Each structure stands twice: as structure tokens, then as C-alpha cells.
């Protein structure tokens, strides 16, 4: 199996030494993100996120299936992550690396287990028919901090996604095409975002946000905090690495909240811009058969 090229001793030493003096190679502050960009595709539910040189594409799709036997009232929601050899020759098809498993797991914990998507609303006929929502995450270019970018892409794709409208009349389920009825958005409850801290030094006393690939290769530990803009923490994952003081972890969560609020407002802005772009002539509101009961997300 090919291995990722490792940075030389000189590079390792330099990055660590510079971080001691709070200097980053790209001139950022320690708690500063690279420029975050989001473009939506022509279809609903395609989000292309770039974070510096990292680029992640997420695509949401829906299909009608039978619900699981033990959960007859719930729809199905899956997140599939793929790291292709296009990103790096160290990634192979059909052989998930540790990074890939970790990203899938963290996304699942952040988005699915925090109940961001109301799966009960995906059920159409109890025990017989439900929507299966699937998000495919493709990493197109890897320059560090995949988790934050992937999480943002998944949330953006799901909030942008529209599923076909359905109706139930006399026990007959009808699924309408987009030409018949305007597709409806998913029932979305809150938007969680991942914020990853990287720790450097033997005691993990230097913490920084949005590490590049070079910084990720020399870091001694990392911690991913998932939270929404209200400060509700969905999960904290600190997988191995150096131990970190509880007090500094608290500070990390405080900064993470600011970043999550920032990401949330950016996403709202981009979604509004995209809705405006699609709504030519202002007809969309008339076509929509959706209830006006939209929670504050």
C-alpha cells in the first residue's frame, strides 16, 4: 500500500519552532480559518466547499425504500464518505484508510446522532414506505482539516436539498415530479458544525485552528468539537494524542462557538443568495405546497 510522503526533518523542526513564536507558514493567526467558499450546483443538494486548498463536494439524494423493521416510523439517513486516489495516491478505492473511517464516523456523530435531520418526517407509510436520504462526500483535494470542510459541505448540501413532494389520499401514495409540484426541503432542526483544534508541542500547549496538511502531519494531537450556533455541543472527539488541560479545552470550546456562529451566518447568507438566484420572477413561493412552519435553524 502506498504511503503518504512524510515531511522532512527540517520542515518538521521549522514548523514547530515557528509555532512556538506563533508564526504560521501562511501568515494566519493561530485561531484563524482559511477563506471558506461554498458554491451550489445546478441541482438541489450539491455543495462544493473549498477551505484554502482543501476541496470537498457533498451531494444529497433521496429514494423511496422500506423502513428498517425495528424502526417502522423512521426514515433512513446515511452519510457515505469517499477519499479517492485523485486526492492522494495513498488512498485506494474499496480499502478505507483510517482517515476515511474517522471522517465518516465523526460526520455521522455530528449530523445524524445529534438529530439535525428529523428522520421521523421521512416516513411516509408506517412500516412500508419511507425516504432514504443519502449524502455522498467526495474529497477532491486534501490540504488539511478535512473534517471541518466535510461537515460544512454535508450540512450545506442537506439544507439546500429538496425532496419530491408527496401526498396520501385514500391509502394511495403519490410522488410528484418537480414539474407537477415544487420539491420540498427536508425537516431540518439545527445546523451543527465541526471545529477542529490541533495541538502542538509535547504538552499540547500550542493550539491552533484549521491546520493545513503540513501542520496536521507534525501535530501531536487534535480535538474536534461539534456544536451549533446556540452553543449546544453535539460531540467532542479527542482521539489519542497528547493530553490537554481541561481549562484550555474549555477555552477551545468558547472559541469554537464563535467560529460555529460565523459559519452558520455564512451558510445562511449563501443559502439565501442561492434561493434568490433560483427564484426568477418570484414564482417559487406560489408554487410551493410547503407549510410555513419553519423552525429557527
Amino acid at each position, binding site marked *: 500500500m502506498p504511503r503518504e510522503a512524510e515531511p*522532512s526533518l527540517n520542515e*518538521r523542526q521549522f514548523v514547530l519552532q515557528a509555532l512556538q513564536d506563533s508564526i504560521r507558514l501562511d501568515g494566519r493567526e493561530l485561531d484563524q480559518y482559511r477563506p471558506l467558499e461554498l458554491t451550489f450546483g445546478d441541482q438541489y443538494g450539491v455543495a462544493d466547499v473549498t477551505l484554502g486548498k482543501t476541496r470537498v463536494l457533498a451531494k444529497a439524494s433521496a429514494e423511496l425504500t422500506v423502513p428498517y423493521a425495528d424502526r417502522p416510523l423512521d426514515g433512513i439517513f446515511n452519510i457515505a464518505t469517499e477519499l479517492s486516489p485523485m486526492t492522494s495516491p495513498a488512498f485506494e478505492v474499496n480499502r478505507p484508510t483510517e482517515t476515511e473511517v474517522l471522517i465518516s464516523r465523526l460526520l455521522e456523530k455530528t449530523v445524524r446522532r445529534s438529530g439535525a435531520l428529523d428522520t421521523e418526517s421521512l416516513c411516509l407509510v408506517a412500516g412500508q414506505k419511507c425516504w432514504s436520504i443519502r449524502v455522498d462526500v467526495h474529497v477532491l483535494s486534501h490540504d488539511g482539516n478535512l473534517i471541518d470542510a466535510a461537515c460544512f459541505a454535508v450540512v450545506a448540501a442537506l439544507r439546500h436539498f429538496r425532496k419530491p413532494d408527496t401526498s396520501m389520499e385514500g391509502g394511495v401514495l403519490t410522488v410528484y415530479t418537480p414539474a407537477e409540484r415544487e420539491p420540498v426541503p427536508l425537516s431540518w432542526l439545527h445546523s451543527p458544525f465541526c471545529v477542529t483544534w490541533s495541538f502542538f508541542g509535547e504538552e499540547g500547549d500550542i493550539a491552533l485552528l484549521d491546520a493545513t496538511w503540513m501542520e496536521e502531519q507534525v501535530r501531536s494531537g487534535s480535538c474536534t468539537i461539534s456544536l451549533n450556533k446556540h452553543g449546544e455541543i453535539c460531540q467532542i472527539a479527542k482521539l489519542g494524542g497528547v493530553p490537554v488541560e481541561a481549562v484550555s479545552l474549555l477555552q477551545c470550546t468558547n472559541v469554537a462557538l464563535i467560529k460555529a456562529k460565523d459559519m452558520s451566518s455564512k451558510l445562511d447568507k449563501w443559502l439565501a443568495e442561492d434561493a434568490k438566484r433560483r427564484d426568477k420572477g418570484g414564482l417559487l413561493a406560489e408554487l410551493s405546497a410547503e407549510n410555513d412552519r419553519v423552525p429557527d435553524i
Partner: protein
Amino acid sequence: MCTSTVCNTKKQNLFNPPRRPHPPHLIPSSTSKPLRLGPGLRHLPPSDIIPTVAGQLITNPQKNSMWVEYNNNRYLPTPGDLILAQITRSGPDLYYCSLSPHTPLATLPHLSFESATKKTRPQLSPGSLVYARVVLANKHMDPEIECVSSSTGKSDGLGELKGGMVFDVSLQFARRLLMSKSREEGKVEVLELLGEEGLAFEIAVGRNGRVWVGGEDLKAVVVVGRALRGADEGGLGVEGQRKLVRGLVRGMK
């Protein structure tokens, strides 16, 4: 090297689509020297020269040579190239070095360092960097590199690089930096501009698209690296480079 039919000559640059023979008036002619073809060109006997890649055709009537200037992504070693290699492991009498992440490892004999004997050879650990010259490179063998000139026995600045930082740039930018008249021909002025601003640094440019920057002041090294990368990625002209350097140096102080 190959000879070809000759016609009247002018120094001309143009963008030529691949896989079509070159118009004969673009081929430099000299009766005394054989025509030399550089990267991106192929000789089809008896008299056709076809480009194999898209790029800018450059001809040099003095040397009677021509090649296609293009920005390839993968470094292919050529004898005489100065490169920045990273030691991956040591064999019984040679080091294995990587020139770029996804190409075969190059070999660096333990004894091709300045005044190296079996007892005094430098001990390099995996991950160290050397500035070296390619001695041997062909299709069917792993490339071989050296840190000493085999004719004079001097190192000429080659050898292990201590400290500093490595920045990746495109291969074309590395070639431009290495030109003898980088300011006039390569249109790269970043290094001169940084020097004029009073930054002290050392630099070693490898043709494999890696630039080593050393110096006492970490901030200066970072600024040099950012200037190089900015000029490369932004495709900046001389004026743009001047602006970039001014901005970076101001931000440093």
C-alpha cells in the same frame, strides 16, 4: 540529439498544437552544429519534428536547439539538474532519496560527498535534506544523484541542508528561478526584491519544484516562502511581484 532538415531560421515563439509536424521555417538551422531537441519534442525520421505536449515553442539559434516550454506536474530527472532530495533510508553503501513523492527513489552513494571516505562519510538520518545533482537518469533505471563534482572533487555548495524550510513551487517556476538571467528571461524578481528590502536568507532551488529557504530569522523565511508561492500560484508579472513583496514585508514589521 538528432539532426534534421534545415531551412531559413528566425527566433520565434508560438503556441503549437501537439501531434502536428512543425512548420519548417520555425526550426533553427546551423550547418556547424547538429540540431538539439529538448523536452516536449520528438523526431520522426526522416525529417519531421512533432511536439508531444502543448506549450510555448522556444528556439535558440546560437545553440541550434529547440524545446517546448510547458508546466508539467511530474518531475522527470535529467542529468545535470540540481535537485532537492529527501533521504528515505540508507542502504549498505548508498542512500535512497525521494525527489518527489510519487516517483521511484533515487540513489545517492555514501561516497559521493566532498572528501568522503568510508570512515568520514556524512551520517544522514531518514528525513534529512540534501542539495544534489542528477548524474544518471534514464527510463529503465533508478536515477542516481551526487553531492560532489566528480571532476573537481569539490562540493560546489551541494550537500546536506541544515535547518530552514522547504516550499513547494511549480516546476516551471523552479526552472525560471534557476535561469542565469532570471530577471530578464524568467521574469522573476522576487528574490532580488526581498534582498533589497533587507531580508537575510539563503536559498537552494531544486528543479524538482522544491525550494529550500534558510536563515536565522523565522519570520523572514516564512515571508520568502510566501512570496515565492504567491508569485508562482498567482502567475504574477514583475509589477505584481513587486507589490506582493512590498505587502508581505510591510505585514512582517
